[in-house]
């Protein structure tokens, strides 16, 4: 899984702080993500894990600290720099956020044709391949509302992959799904991980995190409370907070 790891990190987060008004939600985060690494972020709701993820592609602005992707710093003030950064960082959302007025195929094609100026037939060909990869080749012309939640989320993955990102952010991507649909989405993510995609995912699926992640981060009250390989973190939690969090999952 770590075959493609290079020396320099793909994402480097240094002393990152973020607050909403007087409420500080991220209190100094340091994290280096290596290329090809799969990182699972766990923790209670309100611990800042989604906010951290959303800082990586600039959906949230942080007040202090630094964040670089592929060596380039994140600059809010430059629309150009933000677009460049976002081409490197794909994101998949809890609520899928497919464009409801476009067919599945056009959902996948839209950004490459606009942003990467790809020709329509080329983009269509790529979209077909990507939909095949997530097991939805026959749905190219379907509208999003004709698909199940699991299928919609797989389309969202194909849409993010169409921009050929170096990092993929997954924000609780199975939390809005019926239990029987979770598996099909996780299988796609697992394949991506095996193929060497760098993944940063906020998840409540502990067994999945254990199986796929190279490192697990436990966030607590806006800080990285514990970090380590899943085997260590899950079987031998060092802090009482993580112990309590893990035991609360079994209730």
């Amino acid at each position: 899984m770590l075959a493609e790891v290079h020396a320099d990190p793909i994402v480097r987060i240094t002393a990152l702080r973020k607050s909403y008004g007087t409420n500080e939600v991220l209190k100094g985060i340091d994290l280096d993500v290596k290329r090809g690494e799969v990182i699972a972020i766990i923790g209670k709701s309100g611990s800042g894990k989604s906010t951290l993820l959303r800082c990586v592609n600039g959906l949230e602005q942080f007040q202090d600290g630094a964040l670089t992707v592929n060596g380039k710093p994140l600059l809010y003030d430059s629309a150009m720099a933000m677009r460049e950064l976002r081409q490197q960082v794909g994101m998949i959302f809890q609520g899928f956020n497919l464009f409801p007025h476009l067919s599945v195929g056009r959902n996948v094609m839209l950004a490459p044709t606009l942003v990467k100026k790809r020709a329509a037939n080329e983009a269509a060909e790529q979209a077909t391949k990507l939909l095949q990869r997530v097991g939805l080749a026959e749905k190219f012309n379907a509208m999003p509302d004709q698909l199940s939640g699991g299928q919609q989320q797989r389309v969202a993955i194909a849409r993010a992959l169409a921009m050929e990102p170096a990092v993929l952010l997954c924000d609780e991507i199975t939390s809005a799904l019926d239990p029987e649909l979770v598996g099909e989405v996780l299988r796609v993510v697992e394949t991506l991980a095996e193929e060497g995609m760098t993944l940063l995912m906020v998840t409540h699926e502990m067994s999945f995190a254990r199986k796929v992640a190279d490192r697990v981060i436990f966030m607590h009250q806006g800080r990285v409370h514990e970090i380590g390989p899943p085997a260590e973190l899950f079987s031998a939690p060092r802090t009482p907070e993580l112990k309590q969090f893990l035991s609360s999952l079994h209730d």
Partner: protein
Amino acid sequence: MIEFTLWDIVRNLLLALRWTVALSAIAFIGGGLVGGLLLTLRLGLGNGTRRAIGWYVQLFQGTPLLMQLFLAYFGLALLGLEVSAWTAAALALTLYTSAYLVEIWRGCVDAVPKGQWEAARSLAMSFGEQLRHVILPQAVKLAIAPTVGFLVQVIKGTALASVIGFIELTKAGSMIANASFKPFLVFGCVALLYFALCFPISLYAQHLEGKLHAR
């Protein structure tokens, strides 16, 4: 004294109706363009612009259209700009319409879930691309019914242009009523003509709304 037949009355009113329709069309198209521009500015620029446009909307929604017409006609003259009743009416109605349309449309844009913006942004689309390819197609669908509905308000609003001497349906009606001494008949016809113009549009707006909810 000249005797007015019913046909005389109706024929003259119909001729004046053209100007009601023309003024409505100008106000609606002009108001749509200005409203669209203001909406884009509001969405694309910062808080200062948002506040300025908010004040613009409040100004036009918070004062009677009649005052706006007076101000456009007499106010511009005071500034040394000699404007015809036509220009003043077209200007005042365009601004009035734009203030309402920008509010209606802003509501429709707000009704598009925030996740749509976020997804488009995450795919590295520029602001213009997000707006044009993701947000507006969804907002337009929501906007059609209330926009068509508002057209009825604009048509009825043109009646006020009669007070600055613009000869449209209402002004023609009062002139004919004065000359024919048949005010009830004349204004009855005027009302019927407005109704004939507005009713189909209201029906159409209702139909569009029904179609939207059926989806």
